[in-house]
């Protein structure tokens, strides 16, 4: 999704060549898979979100109604969840950018290729371990009896454990941990594609290292910044596992509502409707972001 949105931002479109008919069979398996396991399920969820609520029924009945949506939009509970999801997604995007940019810069510009490779492997390795395992590891670190609180209490800096988990803070830390590699990888690609002599030209024209980074590297890496923030936002806003584990059901986002409706109460129709709202929210937030960028770029991009 981020990719699509980006080609929009830049208005850059590669003139695609027509696929020769003999090559069609190469893409058939992928298309079949996509249709069967993505389009059909998503389309049926979309359909049942307009179905009359019936506990335990998961196929489309054809009893068309807007009741599910009416229910969502008349309760402040769900408005809060929408707002919370967007706010979390935006905060996580910004934090990932702030933390990720310097590291991405070092990876992209480090003089010795060996060191860059090592850092990239570390970033990738942190994506390899299953997310649930990583999050349990973070709970060991951040829980009330976790390493941080135990250590701080031992040295006497605090008398009661700090609330590091089961709140927005814990969720944000968890989401940043999970999405940071995506941000770093898109930034590394963008910074690497900038010709280093541009920075050097700025330096010998009188820029400090910092000024050259601000006036040359940063603006030229914006495509990667946009791609990274959109990707992280999309991942964060739709994450269920992180708010569930790090928020302990206390930070209720849209995916948590969906899970509760479907897995706990069996109200598929209502859960599906919340899903549609989540998707719409995500699209709307990205559209706003892209429009803002367009305006800021003043049509130059």
């Amino acid at each position, binding site marked *: 999704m981020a990719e699509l949105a980006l080609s929009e931002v830049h208005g850059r479109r590669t003139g695609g060549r027509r696929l020769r008919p003999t090559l069609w069979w190469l893409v058939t398996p992928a298309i079949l898979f996509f249709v069967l396991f993505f389009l059909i399920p998503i389309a049926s969820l979309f359909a049942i979100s307009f179905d009359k609520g019936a506990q335990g029924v998961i196929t489309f009945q054809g009893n068309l109604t807007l009741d599910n949506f009416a229910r969502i939009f008349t309760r402040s509970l769900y408005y809060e969840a929408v707002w919370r999801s967007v706010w979390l997604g935006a905060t996580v995007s910004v934090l990932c950018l702030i933390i990720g940019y310097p590291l991405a810069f070092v990876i992209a510009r480090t003089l010795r290729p060996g060191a860059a490779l090592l850092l990239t492997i570390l970033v990738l390795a942190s994506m390899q371990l299953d997310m649930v395992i990583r999050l349990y590891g973070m709970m060991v670190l951040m829980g009330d009896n976790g390493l941080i609180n135990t250590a701080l209490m031992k040295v006497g800096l605090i008398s009661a454990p700090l609330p590091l988990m089961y709140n927005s803070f814990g969720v944000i830390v968890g989401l940043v941990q999970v999405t940071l590699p995506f941000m770093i990888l898109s930034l590394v690609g963008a910074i690497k594609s900038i010709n280093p*002599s541009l920075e*050097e*030209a*700025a*330096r*010998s*024209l*009188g*820029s*400090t290292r910092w000024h050259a980074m601000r006036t040359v590297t940063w603006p030229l890496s914006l495509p990667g910044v946009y791609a990274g923030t959109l990707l992280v936002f999309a991942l964060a806003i739709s994450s269920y596992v992180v708010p569930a584990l790090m928020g302990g059901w206390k930070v209720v986002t849209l995916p948590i509502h969906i899970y509760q409706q479907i897995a706990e109460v069996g109200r598929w129709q209502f859960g599906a409707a919340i899903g549609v709202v989540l998707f719409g929210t995500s699209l709307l937030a990205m559209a706003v972001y892209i429009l803002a960028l367009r305006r800021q770029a003043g049509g130059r991009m």
Partner: protein
Amino acid sequence: MSDIRLDQLTHSYGETRAVDNVSLSIAEGEFYSLLGPSGCGKSTTLRMIAGFVTPTSGRILIGGGDVTRLPPERRDIGIVFQNYAIFPHMSVAENIAFGLRLRKVPRAEIDTAVEGALAQVGLSGFGDRYQRNLSGGQQQRVALARVLVTKPRILLLDEPLSALDKALREEMKFWIKDLQQTLGITTIYVTHDQDEALTMSDRIGVMRAGRIEQSGTPREIYEEPASLFVTTFIGQSNVLDATYAGAEGPRAAAMVEGRALSAELSHALPRGSAAKLVIRPENVLMGPEAADRNLTQLPATVIGESYQGAMVRYRLRLGSQELVAERQNQAHLARWRPGETVTVGWDPGRARLLPAD
């Protein structure tokens, strides 16, 4: 007084010594070229002077002050890169204003200076363009304008013409040289193109494997090469196997094909050692031209002739060795066919005896 001085400058990338103990002095206003084959360390030398590469050892002095540890932005140096490095997200005018903004020049003065710089490089009216709408030659001019507008003490150019086509290269060669002379700016020019170096430079440093093999005026480099490498890298040379037979007045006597020939000698050689006698093809005279008794004279056989318009090139056999002569193609001068025998000769002052490599 020298404007730039390199003092035993060395840089190693890991095991490779890209620049090896380079020392040289460049005078104020001088146009100095670093000339050498690919990978000989020209760019690394230039990048050390600009401050992008830290020397492993040695010092760099600019105007007498040691700048070895100064960051690039404090060296008062302008550099033009092979790919021009025009900022793609800024207009031409913004590119040129970049250095002036950093120097906190007032807005109105910047605008005037940018206009002036654009006029100087013949690009008036191009201020609103972007890099993607400029040809290679225009980008080149913008890069120069951007640098010159800040009035740097030193101008560094790294193969600035190599990305241009041949006709434009010829034109820019003279244009850059003129501009440099008008401004009187001390310039170091990196190139692997001998024509550029010979036509543009006040002095040339010929580099090979990280070292400066010879440093001198274009005439010295061409006519008094210090090594076999220099004489074969710059222009063409006949290289004949010879043996050093001892001094002969101010010159050296060399045995070539069983005959004693005299040649200039610039290196001390042990008597009897193997050496090379070097003579440029345009200095090899033939037939009536070679009749003068003061010339070195040898009998030769024509084995090939190739017509080159203004010139005729002859391949000649001299005992067991081959020799190339280049003669003007003029009506009053004789021509020879393959198979004919002819006397060849040259001014002994034009022949040099150099140590075998």
